[in-house]
Structure formats: structure tokens, C-alpha cells
């Protein structure tokens, strides 16, 4: 059976589809969005998260690290990231729970019971399981197998995707996905490339493909002041022209709550000083979407 590389499982999640959900985050993403709120999910290789304030200096990580990435000295503990292979041995022994490996290998069968734990909550709320990331479609075979197992259990499924993926990946998950939560970040191709590192043409083609197949699609637009805030009318136009209407559009205002995670994986956060959009800006964005005949969903 296929293995997947996962980041995390989050229960009682209300932002990733209908009802009370459990979201499984998968590792690896083809885009490099400047505002990414899951920096630990970007790279395809496992990455060690280190929360320095939780370290109690027990030194057990240094004892098990095969490459000497974990160093104990008179000054205390130090992580030499360049030596880290992401094996996760240190996480198992860390007493302060300061080390977390982002990127663990699991099979669909192994992770299924965890995703089923809140089945009663799904049933009572119209919720279910969402695959997110990173970009889940980078691991489409794993996703398809897991989604098919969930469907056998009668669980509502959703895939949260940027749609920058081969068509084949979409076709694999399509039969087992109740809702696609699709991020659209910019209408203008050049701007999209500048903000995310990739062209948006394949994304828009995939979106049209899914829409043409009658998929249930919810659109999510990250709203990043100074970055893509002028893109709403263009996005609205694209959405309004899709073969079948989307369920609705949600505008997701930028927040910088991920700063701690950037620190934990020692990544730079290009938009950390970006302001949170004000209510007027959000309202204007929503009005523009409504004007194009789209249904705007609450945050």
C-alpha cells in the first residue's frame, strides 16, 4: 500500500469545509506563496520543528541523533539544521516536547482510525474529513486510497487544493471527493507567478475541468493586502465563467499567526509585517464577488 508523508492531524476544525471536521495535512507543495501559513508543509522532505522555548536541556536528542545535528554544550542545546536528516528519532525522546518532526510516513490504513475518531461529531454536524497541506494532490495516489477508505466508512470528504497538479492526480481523487476546496490566489498570470512562483494557467485549466465534471467546488481567496488585493474582480470574472457554478466563495483575510511556525522551522517569513485587512476592505472584496453573481460564504 502507498505511504503518504503527513504533517499533522487537526480535530474539531471548522474552517476546512462543512460541519465539524478532522483535517489531515500532507507534506510538500509546488507553490511558494509568500503568505503561506503552513511553512512546515512546503518542502517535500521531512523537516524538524524546534520550539526553543520548550527545550528543557535534557540532552536526550543529542544522544540519539545519528548525524550530530543535535548538539549539547555548556551553553545548552543547539540544533545544527544542515546536518538533520529528518529521521525523527529525537522527537521520540524529547522530554520537553520541543521537537516535532513535520513529515511522518503513514499508510492510509494506519491513519484511518485516527480520522474516524470523531465520526459521531461528523454525523451530527454534517462534517467529515478534509485533506489539506501542503498540497495533497502531490501525493494523489495516497489521497485516493485514503479517500476511498473514508467513503467506504460513509465519511464526507473534502480536498483542500491549489490545483497546481497533473490532471491525472485530479482524476485519481475525483471519484472519492465530495467537495473540492480550491484556493485561487490571482487572476493575473504574471502576478500569480511573482507571488507563488508558478504560473496559474494549469490551475485555471484544472478548475475548468473540475467544474465541467460537475464537481462540488468551494473557492477560497487568500486576501493579502498589498499583494493580491486588486485581483478580486479578475478572479470573480473567471469564476463566473466556469461551466457550472461554484458552491460559494470565501475570502480569507491574511493573519500572521504562523510567525511561531516560521521560527520553529527556521524559515524566513516575507510578509510577517503585512497588515491584517480591515472590515471595509473585506466588505469591498465580497461586494465585488457578489456583483459577479457569486455566492459569498462567511469567513
Amino acid at each position, binding site marked *: 500500500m502507498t505511504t503518504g508523508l503527513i504533517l499533522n492531524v*487537526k*480535530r*474539531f*476544525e*471548522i*474552517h476546512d469545509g462543512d*460541519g*465539524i471536521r478532522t483535517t489531515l495535512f500532507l507534506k510538500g507543495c509546488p507553490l511558494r506563496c509568500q503568505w503561506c501559513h503552513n511553512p512546515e508543509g512546503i518542502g517535500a522532505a521531512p523537516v524538524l520543528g524546534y520550539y526553543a522555548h520548550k527545550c*528543557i536541556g*535534557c540532552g*536526550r536528542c543529542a544522544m540519539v541523533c545519528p548525524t550530530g545535528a543535535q548538539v549539547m554544550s555548556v551553553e545548552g542545546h543547539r540544533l545544527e539544521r544542515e546536518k538533520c536528516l529528518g529521521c525523527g528519532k529525537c522527537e521520540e525522546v*524529547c*522530554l*520537553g*516536547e520541543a521537537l516535532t518532526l513535520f513529515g511522518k510516513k503513514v499508510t492510509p490504513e494506519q491513519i484511518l482510525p485516527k480520522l474516524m*475518531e*470523531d465520526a*459521531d*461529531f461528523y*454525523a*451530527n*454536524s*454534517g*462534517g467529515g474529513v478534509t485533506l489539506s497541506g501542503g498540497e495533497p494532490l502531490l501525493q494523489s495516489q495516497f489521497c485516493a486510497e485514503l479517500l476511498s477508505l473514508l467513503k467506504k466508512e460513509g465519511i464526507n470528504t473534502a480536498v483542500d487544493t491549489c490545483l497546481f497538479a497533473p490532471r491525472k492526480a485530479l482524476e485519481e481523487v475525483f471519484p472519492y471527493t465530495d467537495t473540492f476546496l480550491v484556493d485561487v490566489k490571482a487572476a493575473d498570470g504574471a502576478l500569480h507567478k511573482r507571488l507563488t512562483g508558478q504560473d496559474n494557467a494549469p490551475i485555471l485549466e484544472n478548475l475548468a475541468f473540475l467544474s465541467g465534471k460537475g464537481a462540488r467546488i468551494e473557492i477560497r481567496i487568500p486576501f493579502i493586502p498589498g499583494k493580491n488585493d486588486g485581483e478580486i474582480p479578475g478572479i470573480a470574472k473567471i469564476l463566473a465563467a466556469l461551466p457550472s457554478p461554484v458552491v460559494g466563495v470565501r475570502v480569507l483575510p491574511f493573519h500572521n*499567526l504562523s510567525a511561531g511556525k516560521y521560527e520553529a522551522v527556521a524559515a524566513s517569513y516575507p510578509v510577517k509585517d503585512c497588515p491584517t485587512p480591515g472590515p471595509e476592505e473585506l466588505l469591498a472584496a465580497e461586494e465585488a464577488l457578489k456583483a459577479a453573481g457569486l455566492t459569498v460564504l*462567511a*469567513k
Partner: protein
Amino acid sequence: MNPMLPFGFKENIGFLTDEYNEAEYDPATGLSPERLEEEISRYPDEHPQMPLPLVTANTFAYLLDNVQLSLNPHSIFPDKMNVGISYRPFASLSFFGKLANQQIRKRTATLLPEEWEKRALAAKIGLSVPGADFWHAVPDWEAVCKLGFAGLLARAEEQRKAFADRGELDEEKEIFFDAVILSYRAAVRYLERLAAYAEIKGMAWFAAALDFLAKEPPKTFYQVCLLSFLYLNIGELGVEHYRTNGMIDRMYYPYYKADLEAGRLTEEEGDEILRFYLMKISAAMREADQPIGLGGLLPDGSDATNPLTWRILEIYRELDIHNPKIHFRWHPGISPELLDLVLELIRGGNSSIVLINDETVIRAYERIGIERKDAVNYLPIGCYEPVISGREDPRICASWFNLAKPVELVLHGEYTDAHRLLGLPKTDPEPATFDLFLYEYYRTLDAGLEYTVNSIVEQMKVQYLVDPAPFLSGSYRCCIESGLDLHNGGAEFKNTSVKCFAVGTAVDSLLAIKKIVYDDKIMTLRELSGVMKKNWVGFESLRLTVRADREKWGNHRPEADALAQEIYNFCGKRLIGRKNGLGGVFRMGADSVGNSEIYGKTMGATPDGRYAGSPTTKNFRPETGLEREGVTALISSAVGLDGSLFLDAAPIDFMIHPTAVEGERGLLALRNMVKTCFAEGGFAIQGNVVSAETLRKAQADPESYRNLQIRVCGWNEYFVNMKKNLQDDFIARAEGIEGTV
């Protein structure tokens, strides 16, 4: 303007929020508390031949006849008595209550010297503190409203005569009736005296209301609210605290509706009365907050909510107070919009609300043989404990029982004076397997429960010789019809409750012993005992390893959940339905209230990683900081326990980060969370929607966060008023949930 509303709320609010604390008493109206205390404390010694119920009634009457009065001209519920209560930080007992408390202790110690000694020992080692619990009481509010003071008096007089006419008025009954009649006559005289004083103070409107209530049952919405306060203030002069104002929406609605229909009251005026009513409760500063009950099922199975339920909740939201606290009875047919209003309050920071599941309460009553038709009339009192209104004597806190203590006792394997006196077994100091360790745990648990139950029974047998309650009994039809005081077996259901708490500490400690001693063989049981006695010094790594283990109570882990179920099933078999020697049975609860701290102080370090003297786990919560899986896992662990085991309450305390329940979807998720919890048989749910960041800011800058409330157990406190260690505990807990957000 309605004659009952001589002025508005808004312009008087400055004179209402702290009116008890600021009250000035008129010396011309009576004796000072010091003088009263002097007279009243002499009374029993001066009347050595007088039966105790009559001593109680006569001193009560003397107090009502002579207490100094105060009228707040800014309130429509203006009256207060000068009984030496201090209102900081919470309302203390009155001097009369303190005297009664001293007497109870003295009399119990005299009547049951050995029992008293054992009880002190059980408390010292932190096992249990069995007693009769005179402190949780509730009158028959329906009867109080229906009959009023004069009607309750007349009913007692009629029944006394009926017993006499039948030749059944023996000495005990005669004393009982005389004590009730003396008490109610005094109450009526008090109302008349208060009315005369109101006249003098130029408050003719209030004098008229009092004159009416001295003779008649209430007829209007205002009168029924006023009567509640009058009855509460009079009834609570002693030790019995009335732990709810009743299911006030269903109880007051007929008056409210009749007023509206007759054109005596507008909806706006109704709202004004509610503002005064709720603020009056807030100002009284009752410790652990005074409850009001809302919602629930009617006896015919239909929903009891009505337009008044909505108005009460709306006004409560507007006033932004946490006292009264609200007992909201949930059932599957409750209006989703009404539930949303309640959940919005909780989400918005007013967490002084507990949702209680009618179906689970009813099943729990059926388990002790009380039928659905009777159980459906339950009334939550205190923190969340159901009693059958007007028929069940609520000894809801006869004892707590520390489930973690037997783990500690078996671990150390000693045989002490406490073992000998409390009947605890000599256990194997080195059980060869974990199953044998568990066997010793259950043997000790069994003996501990046996001691606790027997001690309660012994103390309940002498309760009438210790604390008769004539005024309270006068409200109960069953007492008046049987001629027996509530504390002399007058109730129809004479049940007593034991609360088995600290399940998280017990389960996690047992599983840690299994791992350290039996599975991984890191050390022997004797060595582990030594480590505990040294409070983990030198073994911090081991302590953290234990804490890092995922198999912990409250996280929906199979082994931990199964062990908790086994422990509660064991306790349930020994407690629930067991005859208590008074014609009633035992009930079981699982909530800890403040006892997690109190009992925690008596305990050494425990193998779950807890340090000596730290609190045990609270209610169904996991150990602080170990709530790794979030709210759904906590609920799943808790509902894995059969809710019908816990007639005496088993609340689930959630803590949710605000971003997890924001917006419309968040409200819907909260609603469905409650629905799932209750569909799975959960007993009650309450909680806080707050982030660690907010709590940290509040700790650093209390001035800016004066109104930040925290649900502590079955009540709320302002976060900034909490002790630092308790604040830190909540911050740690909120940090713990952040990983799940």
C-alpha cells in the same frame, strides 16, 4: 408607568451593583448584629429543656423580630437585614449561620465522637470527608410561589389540626409543627414590620407589595420575583443555603403572561423587572454564584421554554454579569435559535452557564428506581446537581471521594493508624503483576467507599438532633403531610450522594505504574514508592517521560478510557442505589469542585508525574497541559463513561481557542458539539472560549481585563481575581489546547 416600577433601572444602576456591600442599616429598626448574636447564643443554654427544633424556631423568630433593616430607595427589591455578613470577596455566612455551624460541629462531635475522629483522619490523608451536608438546600419553590408565606403558614396550621383531630399528633409531630408555625408566623411579622418601615421611608409602593405578600400568594410578575427574594433572604439566615432560585422561566411565566394579557405590564417593563432581579442576585455576591434554572422538558414531554426564557437570557447578556449562573436544561427538542443564544453568550466570554442533558438525568434517576414522570421534574441545584423539586432532600455533597488516594496507599504499601481506624486493608507491598496491583487498588477503593458510606449513614441518623430545619421543611408538602422535618426523614426521596473525583490522576497514575514497574521494568514498586516520597527529585527525566506518554485520560485513548470506565463501574456498583438507612439510596457524582486543590495538598507525588501537593485532576479534565487531542477527544473519553452512573453530576469542561469557533460556522460547530456530546449520553457541558495569549495579557495587565471571566468548576470567577497559581493553571491549559487549533 407601572405602579410596581416607581423608577427605571438605568438611572439607578450606580446604586445597585454593590448594594449589599454599601447598605446602611437603620439602628432605630432593631438590634445590632453583635447584640443579636449575644442574645441568640445565650438562648440554648438558657432553655436546656426546650427541644432543639423549638430552640431553632424561637431564635429564628427573635432574629426576624429584632434585626435591623435597610431599604435601598434605588431598587424595586430594596430590603436587606443586618446579620453581619461581609461581602468581600464573597458573601460570608451570617452570624446566625456561623452560630448554627458551630452548633452542628459541637453536637455531632458530642453525639458521634469516634466518627468525628475518624472523619478528621480521613480528611487529613485526603481520602474523603463524609458528612450530612446541611449546606446544600432548596425549598419547594413551586409551593412557595403558589401559597406564599401566609398560605404555607395556613397549610402547616391545618395539618397540625388534622393530625390532632385524628389523634396522631404525638410529641415529635407536635414539636415539628410548632417549630414550623413559629417560623412562618415570624416571617409574616417580618414582612409586616418591613412594610411599616417602608411606609415611614416614603416607599408606599413597596409597603403595599409587602402587605399583600404577608396575606396572599403572589399575583403579579413583580410580586413573584419579590417573594423569591424575601423567601431566600429569610430562609438563608441559617446554614442551609438555597442553591437555586428554581426553574424560573417556567415558574414565573404564568405571572408574566397574565400581567401582559391584563395590560398590567408591558414587555419593556417586564425587562426592567428582570434587570433589577438579575442585578440583585449579582450584588448579593454569593460564593460559587447563585443559580437560576432555564429550559428543559415539561412533564408531558414538551419543551418548557417560553418567551420569558428568551427575555431572561437577553437581559442577562445585556447586563454582562456572571452571577446568577445559569443551569440550562437541554433536550433534543430545544429550539436551535435559543441554544445559539446560550452558546453565543459562552463564546462571547460569559461562561457562567452549564448545559445539562435532561435525558441523561432522567436515565440516571430511572437507575435508582425513580420513574421518568417524576424525574422529569428535576431541578439542578448548586453546581449542576439534580434534585426532584419539592420531593427530594438534596444531600448532594455528603462526601467527595478521592479516586487517586487508593493508588497512593497501595503504592506505598504501608499499614498505618489511618488504615486501622478507617478499615482500609493491608495490601501486598510488591504485587507480582499489574493485575495484582489493580486488585489491591480495588480492595482499597472498596474499603474506602465502605468507610465513607457508613460514616455518612451514621451522621445522617443524628441529623435532626444536630440541625432541624423547620422553616425549610415548611415549604415541602411531604414534610407537612408526614409531620416530619426534612432532616428527620420528611422528604419523599431521601437520597445521599458521594462524588468520586480525580479520575484523571488515578487512571494516569495506574497506567504509569503499569509502564514503569511492570511493562518496562524501569524500577520496582518499592523504588517507585521511594521516588514518590522524594517528590521526583533526581528523577525529572522519568517524570517527563511519563508525562510525554500519550496514553492519558481525557484524550480518547483506549487503555486509559477503559480503565476509567472500569473504575467508575466499580464505584457505581458499590454506591448507586445502595440503601442509606434513611429510606433513600446513594447517588454518585464525578465532579471535584475545589477539592482537587484541597485533597491535592494532602497527597504526595503520584506516578502520573504530579508533584506532591499539586491539585489532582478536576472533574473529567485531563491533567493540565496533557489535553493534547482537543475538545472532541475529551468529550469522547467522557461519554465513554455511562452518563446514567452520575446522577450527582459529571460535567465536561471544554476549553476552546476563540478562532476554532468563530463566525456562523463556529456557532454551528458549538451547537453540534453539544448535540453530539448529549446524543452520546453526556451529562453536562460547560467551558471557556479563550486563548492563552488573552490570559497572559490579563495576568500582566489586570486593569484592562477586569471583566474577563473564567469557568472554574461549577461557577465563574473573574480571571484577574484568581490566585496566581490558579491563573497559571488555566494559562497552561490554554497553551495545551493551542496545539490542537
